């Protein structure tokens, strides 16, 4: 069956990952902990301590440590590490090992999202997840391009209280594709990409989800898969080939596709008054995948919209506070409040983000009335914003 269960020694894999991630080259300068957005507020958390214990093989302390799950996997430490250590790979491997040994993090939202994604591993599922596709969206049955919707239909329900409308984002993404002359296919029975399970060490269930998605994409005959969610994009572009080799199709992020179309003059927007916005770089899109300019090109193409970057933007951008629906704490709230204040300090009235999770988390932080009254800033999704300005 799945590799994680039989025959694979996770301890050996961890040792392998320590080598591969260059963790053994750590000389304990502590820059990772200095720059870590979690460590800034939570004194008990330190990426360096995690690394050192993993290198020393202090398994017992790792298994019991709740902080194994506190890392946002935002990779900010990666950018500062003078030894170029891959903390992402390290954290992923440590978590897979710790989960195998019985350690578990604190799932947020009652574990609803994790349960949901694990339910999706079932082969017999026949989902009814495209109820939101109305006549205004042009979808084709057969074609070269497939749009991978991601978890938006489910997030829209689970996180309705935060006011995040993730379906508006998915609809906006398809409208933008249509405007660029693309009528994408959709998978009626698409599974979660498996991102959250993978980053929480549940490799076995991640593989089951990935396999089903890959089988469905192959069946659809798509040559290009467009993803709007940065996490889905990073997972399909990096983790799927890592696990399953050549996929046989191209994975494109919507920002790249649209930025290309804008450059060629195929996509035009109309003005709707003057607005100043700032952009929250999603960690998966930015530091994980290196896409910084494409979303900015899209925002700049909107007439009347001025983009002012925050002091900490691009590769220095700060995460939205929670990664993989794990360990949402008061520290997450502090990270979010700081980030929102930083956004406001640019003078922007709208904070634009390209990730449904950033949107959910930052809107959730703004539910706190004191913060909302103080900042008076709006959080909007890039696709929803751009689609509302389509000419």
């Amino acid at each position, binding site marked *: 069956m799945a590799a994680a269960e039989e025959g694979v020694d996770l301890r050996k894999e961890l040792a392998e990952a320590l080598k591969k991630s260059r963790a053994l080259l750590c000389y304990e300068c502590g820059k990772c902990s200095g720059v870590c957005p979690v460590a800034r507020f939570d004194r008990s958390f330190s990426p360096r301590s995690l690394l050192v214990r993993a290198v020393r093989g202090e398994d017992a302390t790792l298994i019991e440590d709740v902080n194994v799950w506190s890392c946002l996997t935002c990779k900010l430490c990666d950018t500062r590490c003078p030894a170029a250590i891959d903390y992402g790979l390290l954290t992923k491997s440590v978590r897979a090992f710790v989960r195998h040994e019985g350690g578990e993090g604190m799932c947020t939202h009652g574990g*609803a999202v994790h349960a*949901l994604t694990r*339910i*999706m591993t079932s*082969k017999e599922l026949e989902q009814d997840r495209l*109820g939101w596709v109305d006549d205004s969206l042009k979808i084709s049955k057969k074609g070269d391009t497939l749009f991978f919707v991601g978890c938006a239909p489910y997030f829209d329900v689970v996180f309705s209280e935060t006011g995040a409308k993730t379906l508006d984002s998915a609809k906006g993404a398809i409208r933008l594709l249509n405007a660029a002359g693309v009528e994408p296919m959709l998978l009626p029975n698409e599974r979660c990409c498996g991102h959250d399970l993978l980053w929480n060490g549940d490799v076995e269930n991640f593989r089951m989800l990935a396999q089903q998605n890959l089988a469905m994409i192959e069946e659809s005959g798509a040559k290009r898969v467009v993803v709007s969610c940065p996490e889905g994009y990073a997972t399909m572009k990096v983790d799927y080939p890592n696990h399953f080799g050549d996929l046989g199709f191209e994975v494109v992020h919507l920002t790249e596709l649209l930025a290309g179309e804008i450059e060629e003059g195929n996509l035009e927007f109309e003005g709707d008054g003057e607005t100043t916005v700032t952009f929250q770089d999603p960690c998966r899109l930015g530091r994980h995948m290196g896409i910084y300019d494409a979303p900015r090109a899209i925002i700049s193409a909107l007439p009347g919209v001025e983009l002012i970057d925050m002091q900490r933007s691009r590769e220095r951008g700060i995460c939205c506070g929670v990664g993989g629906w794990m360990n949402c704490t008061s520290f997450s709230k502090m990270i979010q409040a700081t980030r929102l204040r930083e956004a406001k300090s640019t003078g922007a009235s709208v904070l634009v983000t390209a990730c449904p999770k950033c949107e959910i988390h930052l809107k959730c932080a703004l539910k706190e009335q004191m913060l909302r009254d103080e900042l008076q800033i709006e959080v909007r999704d890039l696709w929803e914003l751009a689609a509302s300005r389509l000419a």
Partner: protein
Amino acid sequence: MPNKDEKKAGAPSKEDQPAAKPRKKKSVLWREIPEPRAGAARREDADRGDGGFEPRIVAFACNWCSYPAADAAGISKLQYPPNARIIRVMCAGRVHPGFVLRALELGADGVLVSGCHFEDCHYLFGARRAAEQFEKVAEIVRMLGIGPERVRYEQISAAEAPKFARVMHEFVEEIKKIGPSPLAGTAEGELEVPDAVGEERT
């Protein structure tokens, strides 16, 4: 034997393409989707239709209304099917969508959330909260396609023992009709529940 397998696997790609072979070898991995681990036996029971299928139901019952109602149903010797494993919660508003999904994931065939009538709520707002939370999970279950009938929300006050018994009858009948959950037996840890009520107590 290996020849046969090769022929099957090699059907789409003809033998005269040696260059493409090493790449294909890797990607073939994901075509072998693993089978669900267990649970097929329960489905067979249901297919036989001889009453072999006994639904496993998880019922979240509010401490102030539905749980006493279940108690009163017992005291009054009202008969109802013993398929439900009742979990007492202090308020049905505490039953987060995650709880219901977790029960389904672990193989429950149906989940009942039973709380107070809106105006009776011990905590004033909890019953409405329960309804809101249930609305979410009902929508998720509908989208997942595992049958919207598998989740049910009821308002049963402490004085409504007969209603509790009736709801149990109806729910169990309905689940028997639609059969075992497609998720039964696919999860990591099967739902560990006693076979009969009272056999195991914590």
